[in-house]
């Protein structure tokens, strides 16, 4: 694999592999059989490939920009694009904080709470420091940690796969099929974040060759990390209990065994890879929005000699540090997955709508055609719509509704300051009508 392809694959893989993924995978066993869950991981990987390829194609149309900001602007115009970009940043920050809290929960299973919180603080602070050094150090950190975490996830699954099955899962008698349909939308969340590889592509050849390859490898790497676990989990942990565990990877390992310590190391590495990519990426997005005049000019300050938007890095880090303790409240902790699901589905859905709109542009600027079938994009949108509807109809608590409302008001306050501008699609319609 070429260096650039490997680098991009590791960015996407590292962003996708997270501590919460273990609980996501575990929750699937409540309604689906082990075989259905394993198949669902494969199907979800294909769907994520479609979503990530759509991001790749659209990012290739706007090299040198923040992809999501540029292509949603082309599809929907200035205000919608600003709002979506801010939503994406909020979501990434929320995911970073949630992962940090889960890492704290992992440490707390091992150490006193003071030491656990100190360790998480040190890990986050180290990642912030490395990101403030420049662009090379975070890339090296990402390479080492992602390779290590994927390898360790394989190792974690081995004893479970070798373990004699505890009892037949309660859903095994049911007809095969409905469980697969239920598990696919959940499994899609295992792959979330792979599209962040697009924000690290900077060269002409990268957009055309290495980025699509890197995204493919990232999907394969994430699937290869979670397929063995989807087999191992139900062999060791009873399905109903598995679905309720916050940290099933710790339960899989058995307490204080060498594998249990491996599961702790996996948690640290997963936090590192997610926060490392998220911090650098969101800081660059904030910098770009500030350079456009949408956010305060103070965020355009670059550090010398690293030329990193250090203020943006510190702002993101400060928000994450401030949010993490809030997740200690059970009501808030339990509502985070719903909140993130809603945000994520909205962003992905609108990104895919952008793809549908931009591919119709007559003078389309598209440089890259990966041959994504329209039906596959529509299918991915359908799955996202199902997740979104489920989150809004079945799981929307008063707390989540209030947070969403606050998010909406804050984003609206920023975006409404911007002038209205027509999208590329509207420009074309105007030209055609003349």
């Amino acid at each position, binding site marked *: 694999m070429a260096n650039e392809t490997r680098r991009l694959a590791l960015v996407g893989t590292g962003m996708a592999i997270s501590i919460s993924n273990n609980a996501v995978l575990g929750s699937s066993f409540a309604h689906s059989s082990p075989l259905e869950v394993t198949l669902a991981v494969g199907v979800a990987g294909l769907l994520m490939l479609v979503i990530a390829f759509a991001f790749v194609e659209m990012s290739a*149309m*706007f*090299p*040198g*920009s*923040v992809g999501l*900001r*540029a292509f949603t*602007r*082309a599809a929907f115009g200035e205000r919608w694009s600003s709002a979506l970009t801010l939503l994406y940043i909020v979501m990434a920050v929320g995911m970073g904080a949630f992962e940090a809290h889960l890492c704290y929960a992992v440490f707390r299973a091992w150490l006193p709470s003071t030491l656990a919180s100190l360790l998480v603080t040190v890990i986050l602070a180290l990642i912030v420091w490395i990101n403030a050094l*420049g*662009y090379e150090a975070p890339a090296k950190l990402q390479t080492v940690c992602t390779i290590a975490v994927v390898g360790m996830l394989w190792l974690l699954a081995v004893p479970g796969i070798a373990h004699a099955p505890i009892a037949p899962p309660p859903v095994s008698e049911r007809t095969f099929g409905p469980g697969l349909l239920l598990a696919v939308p959940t499994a899609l969340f295992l792959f979330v974040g792979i599209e962040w590889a697009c924000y*690290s592509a*900077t*060269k*002409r050849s990268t957009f055309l060759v290495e980025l699509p390859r890197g995204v493919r490898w990232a999907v394969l790497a994430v699937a290869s990390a979670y397929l063995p676990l989807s087999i191992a989990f139900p062999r060791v942990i009873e399905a109903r209990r598995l679905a309720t565990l916050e940290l099933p990877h710790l339960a899989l390992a058995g307490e204080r065994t060498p594998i249990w310590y491996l599961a702790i190391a996996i948690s640290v590495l997963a936090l590192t890879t997610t926060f490392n990519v998220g911090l650098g990426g969101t800081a660059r997005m904030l910098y*770009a929005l*500030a*350079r*456009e*005049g949408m956010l305060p*000019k103070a965020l*355009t300050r*670059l550090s*010398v*000699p690293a*030329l*990193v938007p250090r203020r943006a890095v510190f702002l993101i880090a400060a928000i994450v540090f401030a949010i993490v303790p809030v997740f200690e409240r059970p009501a808030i902790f339990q509502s985070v997955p719903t909140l993130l699901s809603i945000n994520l589905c909205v962003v992905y859905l609108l990104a895919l709508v952008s793809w549908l709109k931009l591919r119709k542009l007559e003078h389309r*600027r598209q440089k890259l055609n990966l041959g994504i079938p329209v039906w596959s994009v529509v299918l991915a949108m359908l799955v996202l719509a199902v997740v979104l509807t489920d989150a809004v109809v079945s799981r929307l608590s008063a707390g989540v509704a209030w947070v969403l409302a606050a998010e909406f008001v804050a984003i609206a306050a920023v975006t409404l300051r911007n002038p209205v501008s027509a999208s*590329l699609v509207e420009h074309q319609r105007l030209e055609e009508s003349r």
Partner: protein
Amino acid sequence: MLEALEKFSRQANDNRDVRRVVGAWTVDLVLAESDGADRWVLEVRDGRIARVQSADTIDASSRQLEVTGTRAVLESLFSGTLNPVRAATRGDLEIFGDMSDQTRLDAVALILWGP
């Protein structure tokens, strides 16, 4: 176009803040017209623009930062009337190169013409 680039070079080379920020930057800044066939190269050596020239062939082995846009857009960019980040977001400008090189170029624009 050459006139605008030479003026930009003088401004950048004479500015202490620019030289402090870019450090020992060495890159070939390749500017390519999207509405024509003309290309120009700004040879940046040790933080100074050593040479500005119209280029028929580009030395692919050197470290490059490539900026593509219409002639009008490129002229506006190097005369300070166009915000590069906004132009890239609108798709008027395409920038290819290492992130550190892209940031350095933006930092120069930021220092010379403000946010």
